């Protein structure tokens, strides 16, 4: 479904990502791990169209997406979150979900002004989808609260719900467990697995929390200093000597 081939990203003299390749198949959770500064987020930024990669190819469902404007990439069905929560804080929870469905609605201004039946039906549909996901992440009671007033864990869940209402095929989560307590992390774990199982979404995950990564990933890619270090199933990674060295230092 997603294929990253020999991706490189250079910032001036710094080669932040060097020849990284990875692939994600349908119905799969793939993690990218690595020490701080390894270039994980840079890979993400290239994939989501935030950066234009210096070299390499990114194929999504067979089509090249590198260098495309980010709104086009997301319209293909790849959405992402950030390390820091980025909600529209001065809009209500439900508005955050409605605005994410902007492109699914009729963009004809006239039908919006006249409130044609078609327009109403679409509005209703997006409202239904929003309330479904609010129920799913347990925020329905807070639908009319400003998003900025939610607790941190709730904001994290809202962010995932906001991605899901866009009906993505591939979800890219950048450290979704950062700042969560252990029980919230467990709930997040279940949510991510359920996205894959119940909604047929593939997930790419950047994460530091090893318990989360090892529990839910189908495959793991390890990056160190911008270079690919290893890839494989959680068990293979756990027993890989290079990975142990990179994480724990030479023994």
């Amino acid at each position, binding site marked *: 479904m997603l294929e990253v081939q020999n991706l490189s990203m250079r910032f001036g003299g710094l080669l932040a990502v060097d020849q990284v390749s990875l692939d994600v198949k349908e119905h799969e959770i793939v993690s990218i791990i690595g020490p701080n500064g390894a270039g994980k987020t840079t890979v993400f930024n290239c994939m*989501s169209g*935030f950066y234009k990669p210096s070299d390499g190819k990114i194929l999504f469902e067979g089509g090249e997406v590198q260098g495309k404007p980010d*709104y086009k990439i997301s319209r293909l069905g790849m959405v992402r979150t950030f390390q820091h929560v980025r909600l529209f804080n001065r809009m209500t929870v439900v508005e955050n979900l409605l605005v994410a469905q902007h492109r699914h609605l009729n963009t004809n201004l006239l039908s919006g002004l006249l409130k044609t039946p078609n327009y109403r039906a679409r509005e209703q549909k997006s409202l239904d989808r929003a309330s479904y996901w609010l129920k799913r992440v347990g925020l329905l009671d807070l639908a009319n609260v400003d998003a900025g007033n939610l607790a941190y864990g709730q904001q994290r869940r809202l962010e995932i719900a906001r991605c899901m209402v866009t009906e993505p095929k591939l979800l890219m989560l950048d450290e979704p467990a950062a700042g969560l307590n252990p029980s919230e992390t467990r709930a997040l774990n279940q949510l991510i697995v359920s996205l894959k199982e119940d909604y047929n979404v593939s997930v790419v995950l950047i994460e530091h929390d090893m318990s989360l990564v090892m529990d839910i990933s189908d495959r793991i890619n390890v990056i160190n200093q911008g270079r690919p270090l290893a890839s494989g199933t959680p068990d293979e990674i756990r027993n890989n000597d290079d990975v142990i060295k990179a994480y724990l230092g030479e023994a």
Partner: protein
Amino acid sequence: MQDLLYFSQQLINGLTIGSTYALIAIGYTMVYGIIGMINFAHGEIYMIGAYTALIAITGLAALGIAWLPLVLIVALVCAMIVSSSMGWAVERVAYRPVRGRHRLIPLISAIGMSIFLQNYVHLAQGSRNIGFPALIEGGFRFGAADSFQISISYIQITIFLTTLVCMTLLSLFISRSRIGRACRAVSQDLGMANLLGIDTNRIISATFVIGAALAAVAGLLLGMYYGSIDPLFGFIAGLKAFTAAVLGGIGSIPGAMLGGLILGVAESMTSGYLSGEYKDVVSFGLLILILLFKPTGLLGKPEVEKI
């Protein structure tokens, strides 16, 4: 009693002029809210709106059409269409190609756009004042005949009501409609809105177009109110409206409305009690005071960076 009547008269004059400032100020504040830039060509867009309305009115008169509601509506629609396309073009030509560069660059290209439009109208329409037909004449008078009378002209009522309608529609549009929702999202986090699949370029264009359409409404109203227009018509009104937007808190739409009204009332009170010469001194003095004591304006929210 006399004093109270005189005061009321100044208040009415102030609210009239202030509501048109508010209409123009919306354009400044919406564009600033979305891309954080001041559209310095906005005053010219308003001026072009007034000229278009005048051309439409003259054209209809030449055709022998004199039914007032029709004339007003045709003039309004023409002015709004031409100004909106100008607003759209200003964004395409002066802003989009230089977006993301240093902040000064779009500022300067907008000033260039403003000079260009001003001089274009100079060439096309001549630099002298052109009379603007009042169209709506007459008014009410209150008070005893031998003392001070309050007069409210129909044009003042028209200005106030039209502004009220425009503001209500705009507020509904921003709070309820799909594009309004997207506008708010883009103004809060443009990058994230982009990533969620919103075509932010279209939303940015939309804010320029909406602001320009409201400026065109103000152009027609003020043209009728003042009775004459010239190519520099937009400069001082633009400056006043910009002041109103900053006064109310730039980026905030209710702030622009409030700022416009306060500025209009302050000006007319100065003219009424001090001297007409001082009204600009007072309005810009007010701006300095507000910026000293409340730099974000009356309703502006301070930008808080989360650490």
